[in-house]
């Protein structure tokens, strides 16, 4: 099982998903400034090199986050956590990944991307006998632009839009635009941020199934792109490739908004573990 997880990690960091590449190619076609095109051309070249040479496209192979949908009847539930940690160690050596786990007190790098609390694993219990794992390696530059706003209910969705646009503007070129924005609304402070991160697993170009939420995604995307920040913050039409919103019910007094900024290298891969031990890996 650990081997299959290593392969999913390798796939995630060396190949940018097709939907993201398509969005970047479209952005390249839209940009007129030579500088915006310089940056997008470099991005497309880097993606190509990563794929053909099977090497990490971005040197920041991130903190590995795993979203697990664990079927209660899977015979592998008990060994999955150890397999994920073992795979993280092995992938660091084999892929290779950059060791990004640093002790919070001593500053010492563990050297293998594991340590207290990392890799990050989010569990969700589901019916059935299969396990589905999403791998999301996320870099520090864009993660540093994550934010939480505890709005008042009267601010509502207008407030969400204002907060997101102002925050993306303040971040400028730091998170490696064109970015993909994950927005979690409702629940609680912690749940909104978790939903925001989970939103990044959806394909670029795929709107929320709820029409009103999809409409809000489009509105925020338009507002962010009119900022003119552009690729790498040097001006242009494309500041964001997509906006993804996930929602939960909220407390009547609260309107929490979690914002997770994802750089253009929207890396992800998935694997499914069948009850007989067979594993499928895809992107």
């Amino acid at each position: 099982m650990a081997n299959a997880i290593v392969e999913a990690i390798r796939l995630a960091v060396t190949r940018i998903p097709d939907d993201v590449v398509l969005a970047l190619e479209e952005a390249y076609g839209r940009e007129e400034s030579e500088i915006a095109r310089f940056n997008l051309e470099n991005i497309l070249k880097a993606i190509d090199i990563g794929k053909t040479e099977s090497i990490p496209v971005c040197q920041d192979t991130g903190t590995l986050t795993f979203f697990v949908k664990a079927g209660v009847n899977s015979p592998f539930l008990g060994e999955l956590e150890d397999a994920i940690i073992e795979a993280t160690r092995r992938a660091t050596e084999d892929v290779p990944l950059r060791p990004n786990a640093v002790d919070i007190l001593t500053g010492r790098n563990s050297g293998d991307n594991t340590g207290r609390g990392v890799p990050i694993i989010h569990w969700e219990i589901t019916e059935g006998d299969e396990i589905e794992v999403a791998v999301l390696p996320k870099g520090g530059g864009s993660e540093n632009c994550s934010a939480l706003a505890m709005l008042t209910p009267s601010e509502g969705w207008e407030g969400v839009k204002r907060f997101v646009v102002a925050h993306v503007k303040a971040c400028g070129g730091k998170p490696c635009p064109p970015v993909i924005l994950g927005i979690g609304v409702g629940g609680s402070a912690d749940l909104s941020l978790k939903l925001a991160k989970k939103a990044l697993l959806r394909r670029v170009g795929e709107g929320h199934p709820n029409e009103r939420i999809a409409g809000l995604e489009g509105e925020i995307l338009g507002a962010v792109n009119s900022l003119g920040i552009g690729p790498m913050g040097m001006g242009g039409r494309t500041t964001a490739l997509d906006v993804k919103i996930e929602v939960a019910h909220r407390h009547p007094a609260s309107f929490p908004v979690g914002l997770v900024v994802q750089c253009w290298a929207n890396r992800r891969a998935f694997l499914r573990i069948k009850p007989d031990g067979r594993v499928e890996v895809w992107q």
Partner: protein
Amino acid sequence: MAVKLKTPLSEEDVLKLRAGDIVHLSGTIYTARDSAHRRILSLPREELPFEPEGAVIYHCGPVVRKRGDGYEVVSAGPTTSARMNAYLDEILNLGVRGIIGKGGMEVRSFKDRAVYFAFTGGAGSLAAKSIKRVKAVHWLDLGIPEALWVLEVEDFPVLVAIDSHGNSLYR
């Protein structure tokens, strides 16, 4: 305008560059991130493992692979430079003439003495193509991303994003 420059950079090299120019940089560059900056500034100049006069510092934490008794750089794009703003004036006071990074820095610090080169964030596999070899590594105790990597580059295509005349490409 696209120009070829070789490190170490002179004051003259730097003053003729304008924001928006593309530079093909060759020679030796040094990686440094937060911890390496702190260490550079904590040591007396004669104890530094490199000559800062004319040097180019790359804000980068590479992915490296052991190769024989040395290292090979696999992927090496820039990290967010704004984190190093706090050290910028002191670093440039050492005679450093160029910084390579992403996202931009304090424009006024570069005035009349240095330039900020941008390379595309996330394009680490492409940047690695310009890195011909790892000449040395210092301070591995800081961890691989934070160590000071001495890299030989050839025609590394970077953009002058902040010039020494107060111009910046950042919005």
